[in-house]
C-alpha cells in the first residue's frame, strides 16, 4: 500500500477504520483527541462517530454496540479512564461480542494532565490485555491485533499510546481495509448480559484462566522480542524502547527485551531473556511495571538476575525519558558514564508559563468577578480547561483545581464549613455537560450557598475546539441536538440565572455583585465565543494619551500588552481586539485603529 505521513493518533484512527470499526465514541483529552477527529474526517460513511458527554457515557455507548456484534473503539486520556472505570470494571466480567478497543493515552511528564498515572496498572487491575506501542507504525499494527484478541477472548482491550507516540508523525505503510461486515444484531441472553454475583463468580474464573493463556500467546507476538548479545540486558517498553535503540546505535553487545504487551506479561519470553544475565536495566516511563514483572519472575523461577530500575534508584521515578537519559543510563549500566562537554550558560532566559490567549473572554470573566469581589472574602474553585490558566498572575482567580467537574462540589464543601465567605465555582461549557450538572443537582438538593459561573465559550477549547451538547453540532460536523445551559439550570431549580457578555465589563461586574449579594445557588453564564475560533476584530492601539500607569498590564496580564519606554503598547500580531483594556484604561488611551 501507499506510504503516508501520519501522526500516531491518525495512525490509530486509520488502523481502526482498516480493521472494520463500526462505532467510535470518546471524550476529548490531550494527547488522545486527534484519534476520534481523524475517524470523523476519514469516515467512509458507515461508522457512527460521536463525542459522548463524558468517558463513562462513551464506554457505555460502545458497549451497547459491541453487545450487538459491532467492532467499536473508545478514545480518552488517562484521567478519562478514571471516569469510565465504573462501566469498564464490570464490562470485563460481562464480556463483549464485537471487538472493543479502548484507546487510553498516557501523558508522561505530565505535559497536559493532572497526573502521571500509568494505564498499564489499570489494565492489570481491571484484568485486561494492554498493548503499548513504541511508534506510530506499531500503533497502527497493534489496533488490528487488539481487535482480534478482543474478539477471541470476548474482552475489551486497551491500546495505551503515550504523548510522544500520539503526537509523533512517521512515514508508514497502511494495510488494505478489511471488508465491511454486517452487524449480527443483539442476541438476547440474560444469563450473559445481566450481571449478577453468580455470573461474576463464574466469569472471574474464566478470566483468570485465559489471561495466562494469552500471556503465552504474547510470547510469540512480534510486539515482544529479543535482540543483541552479552551477559547484560536492558528491557524497555513504549517510546523508551525507541530512545534506547537510538542511544545504542550499532552497539549489539547488550541483550534487549522489547515489551509491547505489558499485560498479560509474556513471562516465558522474559525468562528466556533473563536466563544467563547477571543484571538487567529496565527503561520505561511512568511506573516500574515491566520492572516489577521481571522481579517477580526472578523470584518465581529462582533466577539470580539483578533487576535495576526505578525501585532500585537506577532510573528516574517521574517525568519523561529521552535519548539522552536512555544513553546515560545505558552507558552507566554497561561501561561507566562519559560526560559531554557542556555549552557555556546563556544569559538569563525567560520562563514561559502558559497563559490565557490575548482576547480570551475568560480573562474578562475572571476580571469582572475579581473587581466585584474586591475587599470581600471569597474563594474561587476552578476546573479543567483553558480557564485553569486563570490561576496565573495577575488574575490569580483559581484557588482550587482537582478533576473534571470537581470545582462545583468542592465549593459546596468549603461553604459548609466556611460560611462567611462567598464561594464561587468556575466551570466551562464542555465540562458543565461532562460532569458539572450532577454537582448542581447536589447543591440545590442540599441547599448549598454558592455562585456558579459558567464560562461558555461555545466549544471545548483546550483540546482543540471539539463540539459538545451545547453547540448543536455533532462530531461529524452535522446538526445535532442542542442542550440549552440556562434551561438545564432552570429545571434544576437554581434561584437565579444571569446571562452576560463578559467583555461588557460594567454589566459583568454588576451581575457578579448581584449574585454575590443573594443566598442560594446562583448562576452567572458568561457567554462569549473562544477567540481562537471567533473572527478576530481589528487590533487596538495605545495612543499618546497613555500616562504610563500600567493598569492594563498589571491587572489583565494579556500577552498582547507590553511595556515600551515606560508606556503600554499593544502587539498587533497578538491583539484580537476584545477591547477589555480600552474599557478599563483610566486615561482613555486605548482604542481602535483610528484612535
Amino acid at each position, binding site marked *: 500500500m501507499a506510504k503516508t505521513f501520519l501522526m500516531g493518533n491518525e495512525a490509530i484512527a486509520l488502523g481502526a477504520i482498516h480493521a472494520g470499526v463500526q462505532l467510535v465514541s470518546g471524550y476529548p483529552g490531550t494527547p488522545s483527541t486527534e484519534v476520534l477527529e481523524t475517524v470523523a474526517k476519514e469516515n467512509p460513511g458507515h461508522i457512527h462517530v460521536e463525542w459522548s458527554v463524558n468517558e463513562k457515557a462513551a464506554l457505555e455507548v460502545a458497549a451497547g454496540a459491541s453487545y450487538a456484534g459491532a467492532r467499536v473503539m473508545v478514545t480518552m486520556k488517562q484521567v478519562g479512564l478514571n471516569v469510565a472505570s465504573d462501566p469498564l470494571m464490570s464490562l470485563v466480567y460481562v464480556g463483549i461480542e464485537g471487538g472493543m478497543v479502548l484507546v487510553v493515552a498516557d501523558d508522561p511528564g505530565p505535559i497536559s494532565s493532572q497526573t502521571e498515572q500509568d494505564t498499564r496498572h489499570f489494565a492489570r487491575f481491571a484484568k485486561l490485555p494492554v498493548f503499548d506501542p513504541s511508534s506510530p507504525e506499531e500503533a497502527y499494527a497493534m489496533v488490528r491485533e487488539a481487535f482480534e484478541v478482543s474478539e477471541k477472548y470476548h474482552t475489551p482491550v486497551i491500546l495505551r499510546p503515550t504523548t510522544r507516540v500520539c503526537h509523533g508523525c*512517521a512515514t508508514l505503510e497502511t494495510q488494505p481495509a478489511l471488508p465491511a461486515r454486517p452487524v449480527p444484531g443483539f442476541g438476547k441472553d440474560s444469563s450473559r448480559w445481566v450481571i449478577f454475583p453468580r455470573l461474576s463468580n463464574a466469569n472471574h474464573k474464566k478470566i483468570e484462566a485465559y489471561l495466562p493463556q494469552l500471556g503465552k500467546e504474547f510470547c510469540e507476538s512480534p510486539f515482544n522480542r529479543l535482540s543483541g548479545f552479552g551477559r547484560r540486558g536492558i528491557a524497555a517498553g513504549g517510546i523508551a524502547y525507541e530512545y534506547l535503540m537510538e542511544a545504542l546505535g550499532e552497539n549489539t553487545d547488550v541483550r534487549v527485551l522489547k515489551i509491547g504487551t505489558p499485560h498479560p506479561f509474556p513471562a516465558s519470553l522474559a525468562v528466556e531473556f533473563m536466563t544467563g544475565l547477571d543484571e538487567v536495566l529496565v527503561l520505561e516511563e511512568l511506573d516500574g511495571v515491566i520492572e516489577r514483572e521481571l522481579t517477580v519472575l526472578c523470584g518465581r523461577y529462582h533466577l539470580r538476575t539483578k533487576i535495576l530500575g526505578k525501585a532500585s534508584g537506577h532510573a528516574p521515578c517521574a517525568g519523561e525519558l529521552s535519548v539522552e537519559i536512555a544513553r546515560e543510563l545505558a552507558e552507566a549500566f554497561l561501561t561507566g558514564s562519559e560526560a559531554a562537554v557542556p555549552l557555556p550558560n546563556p544569559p538569563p532566559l525567560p520562563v514561559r508559563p*502558559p497563559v490565557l*490567549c490575548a482576547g480570551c473572554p475568560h480573562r474578562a470573566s475572571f476580571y469582572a468577578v475579581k473587581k466585584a469581589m474586591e475587599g470581600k472574602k471569597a474563594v474561587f474553585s476552578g476546573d479543567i480547561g483553558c480557564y485553569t490558566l486563570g490561576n496565573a498572575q495577575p488574575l490569580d482567580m483559581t484557588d482550587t483545581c482537582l478533576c473534571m467537574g470537581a470545582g462545583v462540589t468542592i465549593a459546596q464543601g468549603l461553604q459548609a464549613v466556611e460560611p462567611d465567605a462567598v464561594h464561587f465555582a468556575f466551570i466551562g461549557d464542555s465540562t458543565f455537560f461532562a460532569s458539572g450538572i450532577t454537582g448542581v443537582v447536589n447543591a440545590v438538593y442540599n441547599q448549598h450557598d454558592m455562585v456558579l459561573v459558567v464560562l461558555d465559550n461555545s466549544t471545548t477549547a483546550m483540546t482543540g475546539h471539539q463540539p459538545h451538547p451545547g453547540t448543536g453540532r455533532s462530531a461529524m460536523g452535522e446538526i445535532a441536538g442542542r442542550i440549552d445551559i440556562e434551561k438545564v439550570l432552570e429545571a434544576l431549580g437554581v434561584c437565579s440565572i444571569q446571562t452576560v457578555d463578559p467583555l461588557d465589563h460594567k454589566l459583568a461586574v454588576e451581575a457578579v455583585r448581584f449574585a454575590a449579594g443573594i443566598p442560594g445557588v446562583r448562576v452567572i453564564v458568561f457567554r462569549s465565543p473562544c477567540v481562537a475560533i471567533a473572527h478576530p476584530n481589528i487590533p487596538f492601539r495605545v495612543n499618546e494619551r497613555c500616562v504610563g500607569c500600567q493598569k492594563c498590564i498589571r491587572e489583565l496580564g494579556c500577552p498582547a500588552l507590553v511595556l515600551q519606554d515606560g508606556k503600554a503598547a499593544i502587539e498587533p500580531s497578538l491583539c484580537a481586539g476584545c477591547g477589555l483594556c480600552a474599557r478599563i484604561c483610566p486615561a482613555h488611551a486605548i482604542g481602535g485603529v483610528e484612535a
Partner: protein
Amino acid sequence: MIRNCLLCGVGGQGTVLASKLISAAAMQRGDDVRTAETIGMAQRGGCVVSHVRIGRDIHSPMIPLGQAQIILAFEPAEAARCLPYLVPGGTVVVNRKAVQPVTATLSGKPYDAQAVLDYLAAQVENLVVLDGDAVCAQCGSPRVLNVALLGAAAQSGALGLTCEELSAAIMQRVKPQFHSLNLQALALGAQAAEKELSHEDEAGTV
C-alpha cells in the same frame, strides 16, 4: 544520512505548520520523516518545540542533543534554550524579535534579547538573524513569520530542501487563498538570508 531540523518558538507562532511543510517537502522527494510536536497546554503562550527528522531507520521522534543540523527559532530566547540540540558547526536561523512573557512584562523586567542574540552570535558558527517583522510588514500579514523562516532556512543550505520544494509543499498543504501570500513570504525570507549570508562571506574574506 539523517537530517535533523528543530523548530522552536512560543505557542501561537505557527511552528506546527512550518514543521508540516518541511515534512511534506521531504516526503514529496521520497524521504521518510519522523516528527514530534508540542500539542496541548503549552500552545497557550508556552515554549513549543517541533522535531523533524528526515531519513531512514530513525528510532526516536525527538532529536538527540547535539544532532540538529539546523534550528529554526521563532524567538531569540527559544533559540538559546534549544541550542544544546545543535550539532557543532550547525546553522541557526532566528527571528530577531523577542516575545516577552506576561510574567516578565508584569515584573517590569523584560528579558535582555540583545544579550541573547550576542550569545547566539558567539556560540553559533552559522547564524542567520531574520527581521521577521519587516517581512511580515512587506507581506501585509503578521501570520507569515513561519514561512519567512522556512525561506531563510532553505537559503542557508542547512535545511537540505530548496525553496522550490517548499513552494510545492505550500501549494499542497496551505489553503489556495493563502498561496501567493506564503510564496511571497518564502521568497522574502530567502532574500533576507541571502543578504545576511553574503555579508558574512565578505566579513570572512576581509
